[in-house]
């Protein structure tokens, strides 16, 4: 009691949140990894992982243990410091951006006034990590992956932001909590279907998911920017990717799909969080579905699609929304 008493409540809250967030990020990585492999199996006429645990549920745990136990190889003639730093650069921002996500009406670490801008800014940091990883690997394939990643990230950030701004025009706020509250009558996805679709496509590109998985296109670039990373450092990139997917989907849910709102469930207290998670995982399922269905686009097609179609449509959509809101 005394120790708790001496700690300022704000600090205690921060520490607790950090622990919960990190635990959640890892659990989400494990769950999503399992889900992806199991679903990929379903799409491909095979059962997926079956050996470790019932229905192969512990497969990801076994893989994590294997990856942690592996030797970490640093290529000769590469910058050791940066090479060690790169996985953390990829991993830390996704953990940080968690603090503004409202899981339910009471379950949110901190409701910033600038929540949306904060989350977008921190997520863009992922690109820096990819560039560093590709650059210090001293490998041409990795460099290709990094360059592709940056070009793709910069291009797709624009339609993504434009589509999000339309929602901001409707809610008059950047706070994630206000976004959810403003959807008590009608979800924004029904008012802004175009923005939602554009956001989701840009989100796929942002998280390097197929058909936009060019930075790690295995048939062209072996493994792209993380070719040289082994063991635990590889798994950090892996975790970062899955957590990024989670964020892209949870932003979509918060801004377009009503956040935690939904019919009350028997577990009243938690029904908000359950609805939120349910919606996020439905979107994640669609992401996985797309990945295992479509071939990969080519690099110039990817950029053309962004600059010639997505950005103009997003701009037009923003213009129309602005006019309607003003009138």
């Amino acid at each position, binding site marked *: 009691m005394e120790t708790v008493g001496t700690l300022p409540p704000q600090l205690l809250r921060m520490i607790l949140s950090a622990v919960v967030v990190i635990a959640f990020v890892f659990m989400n990585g494990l769950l999503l990894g399992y889900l992806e492999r199991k679903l*990929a199996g379903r799409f491909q*006429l095979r059962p997926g992982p079956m050996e470790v645990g019932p229905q192969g549920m512990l497969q990801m745990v076994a893989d994590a243990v294997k990856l942690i136990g592996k030797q970490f190889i640093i290529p000769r003639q590469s910058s050791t410091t940066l090479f060690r730093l790169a996985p953390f650069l990829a991993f830390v921002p996704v953990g940080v951006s968690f603090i503004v996500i409202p899981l339910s009406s009471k379950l949110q670490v901190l409701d910033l006034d600038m929540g949306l801008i904060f989350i977008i800014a921190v997520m863009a940091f992922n690109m820096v990590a990819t560039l560093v990883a590709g650059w210090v690997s001293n490998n041409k394939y990795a460099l290709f992956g990094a360059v592709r990643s940056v070009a793709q990230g910069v291009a797709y950030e624009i339609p993504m932001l434009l589509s999000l701004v339309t929602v901001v025009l409707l809610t008059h706020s950047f706070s994630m909590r206000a976004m959810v509250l403003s959807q008590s009558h009608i979800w924004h996805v029904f008012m802004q279907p175009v923005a939602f679709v554009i956001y989701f496509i840009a989100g796929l590109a942002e998280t390097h998911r197929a058909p936009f998985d060019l930075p790690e296109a295995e*048939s062209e670039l072996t493994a792209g920017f993380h070719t040289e990373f082994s063991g635990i450092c590889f798994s950090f990139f892996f975790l970062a990717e899955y957590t990024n997917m989670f964020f892209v989907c949870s932003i979509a849910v918060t801004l377009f799909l009503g956040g935690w709102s939904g019919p009350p469930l028997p577990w009243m207290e938690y029904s908000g969080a359950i609805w939120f998670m349910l919606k996020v995982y439905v979107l994640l399922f669609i992401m996985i579905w797309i990945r295992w269905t479509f071939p990969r686009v080519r*690099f110039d*097609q990817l950029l053309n699609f962004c600059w010639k179609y997505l950005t103009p449509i997003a701009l037009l959509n923003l213009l129309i929304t602005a006019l309607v809101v003003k009138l």
Partner: protein
Amino acid sequence: MTTNNGNEKRQGFYLNMGPQHPSTHGVLRVLLEMDGEYVLEAEPVLGYGHRIQEKMGESRPWKGFMPNTSRLDYVGALICTHGYIGLIERMTGIEAPLRAEYIRVITSELNRISSHLLWLGAFLLDLGAFTPIMYTFDDREQILDILEDVTGSRLTYCYFRVGGVNRDIDATFIAKTRAFIERLRSRFRIYHDLVTTNIIFIKRVQDIVHLTPDMAMRYGITGPLLRSTGVGYDIRKSEPYSVYADFDFEVPVGTSGDCLEVYLVRLEEMEQSLRIIEQALDRLPDGPHLAKTPKKLPLPQGDASFSVEAARGEFTYYLVSDGSEVPYRLKIRSPCFSNLSILPELCRDMLLSDLVMVLGTLDLVIPEIDR
């Protein structure tokens, strides 16, 4: 190094693609000179899987080389063996019974379909779609099961004999094959729905390269690649071997010679193979499956050649004999070697992703190039 591109000289850097690379399909190494993501020059480097197959054929009795023939093009091994057996039969004058010829055609065509199915999956894998290969492998597995029942092995068959085939086919084989034909036809609908009409797929493969008949003939390209340019050259039609002349089938040809046409030609070829198999099963004659041949069979002095239409093109054996059982000289002409040689010309000034796609279109089996 600098290359001439128009009048301006561009400075490139080298990128080694292979020998260990996911999309070179074996131990092929392509030395690329790149400018950013653009390929300035592509140079295939061979020899990582060389096994002196021709010399092996020249240093033992011809019978001993028979199993080796299925290790050349291991994806379409039966057709490969067919060429060698056909050559020996042509030299010694032994004729296989009609039933054996029909069995050869049925199994060869099944093997051709399995080879094309493998290509289809691998090609789409090169384009970044992971799922189709599981479907095509599922189909291919059925063929391997059918062939395993009759030949005893799943990949490197040694089934054809001089004067017939090793084992007769039975009613179970026929029933299984007929069921498979039904099944594959329904699967083609899935492939057409999910792949042929997919906008990303079409954008990736259409109009990237244009193979002209002139170019194809300069490099000696055969098989579906040549046919996609509009030249209807198929050994099964132009100089029919075995009993191919008895069957009613078409040789699908394309028009523009781009990768989409190659894809369509290969898909249509599978359909035509199914037609051949159906006809052969309907008209399967009775009789022995293996003619009586003497134990020791020296090859008469002289030379002969025999060509078959393998899954990737014209497969030719040329043999010079000095009258003994051991061939004096054995020359193998494999289609992939010629098909690969066009890569430098096709892939000049194209994106790396397209190079991977074109490499997939060529349908290379490296052990057949590196003999």
